[in-house]
């Protein structure tokens, strides 16, 4: 089966290459923004040779800094790519404080209220992104389908930070403009994960995280800005609190959430807190924790070690996150062209298919579909039972035939995102209150 896969990839890759070459030759070079050193247009051959010398430096979190993607991109695009995998925090730090260290920023949308005001990213010209219209409306218009809960989701929803007002602007635009902050490529809906063998029943509400039944066997993320959101989901589900915007709490709300969290901690509700992906996997596989907030690849990893693990669809909805690529303000000329090529390539579908097989969603699902087998598409996006075994991009079986994706289809899962990973105006106070919770 992997043989067919590879063949499809190669064919697709060739097609992409050809399409890109065609686009390069036919597109008038005058399209390049003024100030580009290559104006007036040069012959495509010379251009190709020049682009060969380009090396794009990417920074990002581990999720997409994968060697396979780099190798494939270099092969398809003809220039060099350097990737640096960082933690979420380091990634934002470098984006804000060390603009000369990167050409492309692969970051989460919730980091944009920090990164964009620094002026280190240059707005992306939407008209240069060929497949922009294929991007799911979650990012572009915010309207997935009529009545979807995600349309009114709280927090730093990508739609709120997707555009800036102009080419030199660092101000977010509420309506779509021709200037995007980042081009998305992956996102997902996060929720609670649990061990059905140890929990013994179905978990259907966030409130269960603070259920005394699981005292000493639950865990929460120790990343203040995400942990507090999960806590807020729980408290809201318990009916103890309501929030105007969980992604932008007031100091009073933060006080109240912290107070309730400390009560839970003192009562011994939490076994531990996790900060890195593998910690959450180890908690779950060792049986230290039976119910906790989790990330989707962690659930996959727990399953891969032979334990049952359910990524629970909860009635209150999901917490979403989204990642995209932004361009450094240092890019210009041929390197900028190469960066745009890379953005277009990311949307072209190969990467989408690659990431989809790990359980992420592609920003342009229909493009990714071209690089997936119908059975894969049905399982990952349609919520249908797997007709064949599901193999991850690294060749490991992660679901057996007959399995159904927890939470169902793309529309059911992403449509029910009610809040997003967020950057709060009260960020400083949040970190302070979180410290109070941890030392309590």
């Amino acid at each position: 089966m992997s043989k067919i896969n590879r063949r499809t990839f190669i064919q697709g890759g060739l097609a992409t290459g050809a399409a890109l070459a065609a686009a390069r030759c036919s597109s008038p070079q005058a399209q390049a923004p003024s100030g580009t050193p290559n104006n007036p247009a040069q012959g495509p051959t010379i251009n190709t040779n020049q682009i060969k010398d380009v090396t794009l430096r990417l920074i990002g979190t581990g999720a997409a800094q994968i060697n396979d993607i780099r190798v494939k991109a270099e092969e398809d695009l003809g220039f060099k790519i350097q990737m640096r995998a960082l933690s979420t925090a380091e990634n934002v730090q470098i984006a804000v404080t060390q603009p000369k260290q990167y050409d492309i920023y692969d970051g989460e949308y919730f980091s944009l209220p920090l990164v964009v005001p620094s002026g280190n990213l240059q707005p992306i010209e939407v008209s240069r992104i060929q497949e922009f219209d294929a991007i799911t409306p979650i990012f572009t218009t915010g309207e997935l389908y009529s009545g979807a809960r995600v349309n009114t989701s709280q927090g730093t929803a990508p739609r709120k930070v997707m555009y800036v007002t102009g080419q030199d602007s660092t101000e977010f635009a509420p309506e779509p403009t021709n200037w995007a902050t980042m081009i998305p490529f992956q996102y997902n809906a996060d929720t609670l994960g649990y061990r059905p063998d140890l929990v013994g029943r179905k978990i259907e509400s966030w409130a269960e995280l603070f259920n005394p039944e699981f005292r000493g066997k639950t865990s929460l993320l120790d990343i203040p800005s995400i942990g507090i959101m999960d806590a807020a989901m729980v408290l809201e589900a318990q009916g103890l609190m309501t929030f105007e915007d969980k992604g932008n709490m007031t100091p009073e709300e933060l006080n109240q959430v912290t107070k309730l969290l400390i009560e839970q901690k003192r009562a011994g509700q939490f076994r531990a807190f996790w900060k890195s992906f593998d910690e959450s996997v180890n908690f779950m596989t060792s049986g230290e924790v039976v119910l906790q907030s989790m990330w989707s690849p962690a659930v996959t990893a727990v399953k891969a070690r032979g334990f049952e693990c359910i990524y629970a669809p909860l009635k209150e909805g999901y917490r979403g996150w989204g990642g995209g690529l932004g361009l450094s303000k240092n890019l210009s000329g041929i390197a900028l062209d190469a960066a745009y090529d890379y953005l277009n390539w990311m949307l072209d579908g190969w990467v989408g298919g690659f990431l989809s097989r790990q359980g992420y969603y592609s920003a342009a699902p229909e493009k990714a579909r071209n690089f997936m087998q119908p059975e894969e598409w049905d399982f990952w996006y349609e919520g249908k039972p797997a007709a064949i075994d599901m193999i991850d991009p690294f060749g490991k079986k992660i679901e057996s035939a007959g399995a159904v994706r927890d939470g169902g289809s793309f529309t059911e899962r992403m449509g029910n995102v009610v809040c997003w990973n967020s950057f709060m105006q009260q960020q400083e106070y949040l970190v302070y209150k979180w410290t109070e919770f941890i030392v309590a």
Partner: protein
Amino acid sequence: MTQSKALRPYLLAAPQTLVFLFGLVLPIAVILIVSFWNFNGIATTPGFTLRHYIGIFTSPAYLSTYINTLKFAFLVWLVCVLISYPVAYYLAFRIKSTKWQTILFLICTVPFLTSNIIRMISWIPFLGREGLINKALMGLQIVDRPVEMFLFSDFAVILAMVHLYCLFMIAPIFNSMMKIDRALISAAEDLGASAFNIQKRIILPLSAPGIAIGTIFVVTLVMGEFATMRLMSGGKSSSVGYLIKNQIDSLQYPAAAANAIVLLTLTLLIVFAILRVVDIRKQL
């Protein structure tokens, strides 16, 4: 000729001075300066404010983080002394052959051949709910359900830190004890001193400089800890080091810098206090 001779000591000292200047003095000066800068929730801007320092001294959460850090420093130090002193004594006085002293001392250092993190993490499968100790206790029917406080607790933090840092205490105490003139002990014995009196009036005072050096090592290491604290407490306990890391992660550089300065001052005060009590120069 004479001129170049006069310059020679300066030239010899220059590399050290430069490393010291650029590797230590300059960074600390920068941290000190940044600790007075402004932070508006997103960005750090140059300025002068005492806000971050006032925050540290007026907030119950920060103060309890400092108290927690001191508590762990004290407990780890205490356990380290209680373990290291007898070990060093045994090596220095009970083992008569130098060869065996060397071999046994090297055995003490074996755990240090692997990395810190690995030594720490290896405790986790050992202590967990389904870990070896709990399995053994349940198998022997000493307890009927797993003891949870072995892992993700203060106990686990102290255990791991003692494991990580004990050698830093053993080595200097052993070194001090080796320098004690054996004739003193023979004389005391001849004069009828009890074993306890020999310990109290000869060995302990003469090995005090070693204990002091070990204390400086252990206390400064524990005061700056954050990885062990986080992993072994499962994130349920905090230290100043971990607080600083959290602040850096959310780009609050001035607050992190202020905490770093306070922590540094506090640690230096402890070190000075030790140096006032014990003259460690005898050892050098």
